[in-house]
C-alpha cells in the first residue's frame, strides 16, 4: 500500500460515568494504511504518553475478531464503515488521507461509560447468568453422537452461538435494544435437545433480565443484523419471540 495518512480524530473523552464527557480533537500523523484501527489508536496513545497526557482508554483483547472485547462507534457506525468485522479487524485502508474520524463509545443506559471509549458491558453477563446455560448432571461421559441432531439444526445453533457479545447490536439499534444478543443466546440452547429442560424458564428469565438492565425494545429495523461483526441473523429474534410468548401464554413452568 502506498504512503502514510494524516487523520483528524474527534475522540470522546470522559473521566467516568459520573462526569460529563466531551470530544477532544487529536491529529494522527504518519498512519500506515496496513494498520488496524486499534494500532492507529496505539500510535496516538504513545504520542499522548510521551507528552505526559492521559492516553485514550478503549477496550481490546485478542485483536483477532474473536473475543468481542473491542467496540467503538466510528463515524456513526459500530465497528466502523465495514460490515461483518470488528474494530480490531478494521484496517486503516478503509479511510483516506485527511479524513476526520469521530470515535464514540457505545451509547446505552445499560452500558455506562467506564472511561473514555470503554463501556461496562456486564449487563450482558447478567443476562447470560439469568438463564444462558444448561444443567448437566455429573456422571459417566456420554457417547459421542448419542443424541442425534440433524445437521441443519446443529449448524443453526452453532451460528447463533458464534455471538461474541461485543454489543454492536445495542450500539447500532436506534432503541439501544439488546434483543439480537439475547435471542442468539436463547437460540443456541432452544434449538438443541440438551437445551430443552430449561427451555421455557430460560426465555422468561433472560428476557426479564434484559428488561431489568434497561435496554430498549426492538422495532425490527434490522440495524443490529447489518452491523453484527459475526452475522447473527434477525430470525433469532423471531425465535426468541416464539420461545418467550409460547412460554408466557402456554407453557408457564411455575407449578400451580
Amino acid at each position, binding site marked *: 500500500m502506498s504512503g502514510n495518512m494524516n487523520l483528524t480524530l474527534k475522540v470522546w473523552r470522559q473521566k467516568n460515568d459520573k462526569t460529563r464527557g466531551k470530544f477532544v480533537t487529536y491529529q494522527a500523523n504518519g498512519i500506515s494504511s496496513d494498520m488496524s484501527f486499534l494500532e492507529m489508536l496505539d500510535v496516538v496513545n504513545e504520542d499522548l504518553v510521551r507528552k505526559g497526557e492521559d492516553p485514550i482508554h478503549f477496550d481490546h483483547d485478542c485483536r483477532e475478531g474473536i473475543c468481542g472485547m473491542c467496540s467503538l*462507534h466510528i463515524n456513526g457506525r459500530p465497528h466502523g464503515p465495514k460490515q461483518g468485522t470488528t474494530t480490531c479487524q478494521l484496517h486503516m485502508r478503509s479511510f483516506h488521507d485527511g479524513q476526520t474520524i*469521530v470515535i464514540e463509545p457505545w451509547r446505552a443506559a445499560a452500558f455506562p461509560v467506564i472511561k473514555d471509549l470503554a463501556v461496562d458491558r456486564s449487563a450482558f453477563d447478567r443476562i447470560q447468568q439469568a438463564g444462558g446455560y444448561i444443567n448437566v448432571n455429573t456422571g459417566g461421559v456420554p457417547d459421542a453422537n448419542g443424541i442425534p441432531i440433524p445437521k441443519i439444526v446443529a449448524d443453526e445453533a452453532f451460528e447463533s452461538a458464534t455471538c461474541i457479545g461485543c454489543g454492536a447490536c445495542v450500539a447500532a439499534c436506534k432503541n439501544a435494544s439488546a434483543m439480537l444478543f439475547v435471542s442468539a443466546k436463547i437460540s443456541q440452547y432452544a434449538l438443541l435437545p440438551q437445551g430443552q429442560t430449561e427451555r421455557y424458564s430460560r426465555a422468561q428469565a433472560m428476557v426479564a433480565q434484559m*428488561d431489568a438492565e434497561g435496554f*430498549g425494545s426492538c422495532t*425490527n429495523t434490522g440495524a443490529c443484523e447489518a452491523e453484527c461483526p459475526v452475522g447473527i441473523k434477525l430470525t433469532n429474534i*423471531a425465535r426468541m*419471540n416464539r420461545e418467550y410468548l409460547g412460554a408466557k401464554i402456554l407453557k408457564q413452568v411455575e407449578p400451580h
Partner: protein
Amino acid sequence: MSKSKHLLSSSLGKKLIMSLTGLFLCTFLIVHLAGNLQLFYDDQGKAFNDYAHFMTHFTPIRIVSYLLYASIVIHAIYALLLTIHNRKARPVSYAVYRGSENSAWSSRNMGILGTVLLVFIVTHMSNFWWKYHNDGVPYIEYRTDLATQETTVTELIGDEYTDYVKYIDNDVEVLKAKDLYKQVQFTFKNWLLVAFYVLAMAALSFHLIHGFKSAFQTLGFDHRKYAPVIRFLGIWLFGVVIPIAFAAMPLYFYFSS
C-alpha cells in the same frame, strides 16, 4: 431461573400488543377499501349510502367497530410507552449516527408516520363519522324501476325525513338513506383536505411496508417458505395497492367535480 414478569409489562409483551392491534387495523383496511370502492359506482351514491347504513346499524359490525376504535387508541398509547422506554435506553445520543447505512427509513420513522396517521384518523372521522352520527348529513331518496333499472333521485331537504327505509312497491325499489356520498363530494372539493388525504396515504404506505412484516416478526413468524409471502403482501398489497386505491378517492372527487 424463576424470575418472571407479567407478560404485558415486559418489552416483548408490549410489542405483542403493537403487533396484534396493528394487524387487526390492517384487516380493517381491506374491508374499508372494499366498501369504499362503491364510491366509484356511477349510481349517484345509491350502493354506497345503502352500505353506509348497513355498516353503522348491523350489530356484529358495530361491535367490531368498537374493537377497532379501541385498537387505534391502544396502538397509539403503547407506541408512546415504547417510544418513551426506548428513549430512556439511550440517554446520551450519538454525535454521528448513520442509520441509513444499516436500516430502512420507514423502519426508523414509524413514530412520525404513525403520528401523521393519527392526525389523519381524527380528521377523517370528523369529516365523515362525526357528521354521519350527528345528523350533519341530509337524506336522499332513490326510486329504481326494476323493469328498466332506471333510477330517479330526490334530495330530501332538512328535517323532512329522518328514517332509513328500503322496500319494493309495484316493481319500484324505494331507498331512503343518509346521503353520505354527497358529504364525500362536498369534502373533497377542498384541495387542502385532498392534499392532506393523499399525504396521509403516502404515510400509510411507508408505515405498512415496515409495519406489516414487522408485526409477523414480533409474533415470531419467520418461516423460510412463508415469510417471503408476508414480505410480498406487506410491500405490494399494504404498501402499494391499498394506499393508492384510497388516495384515488379524494383525487377522483376533486377532479370530477
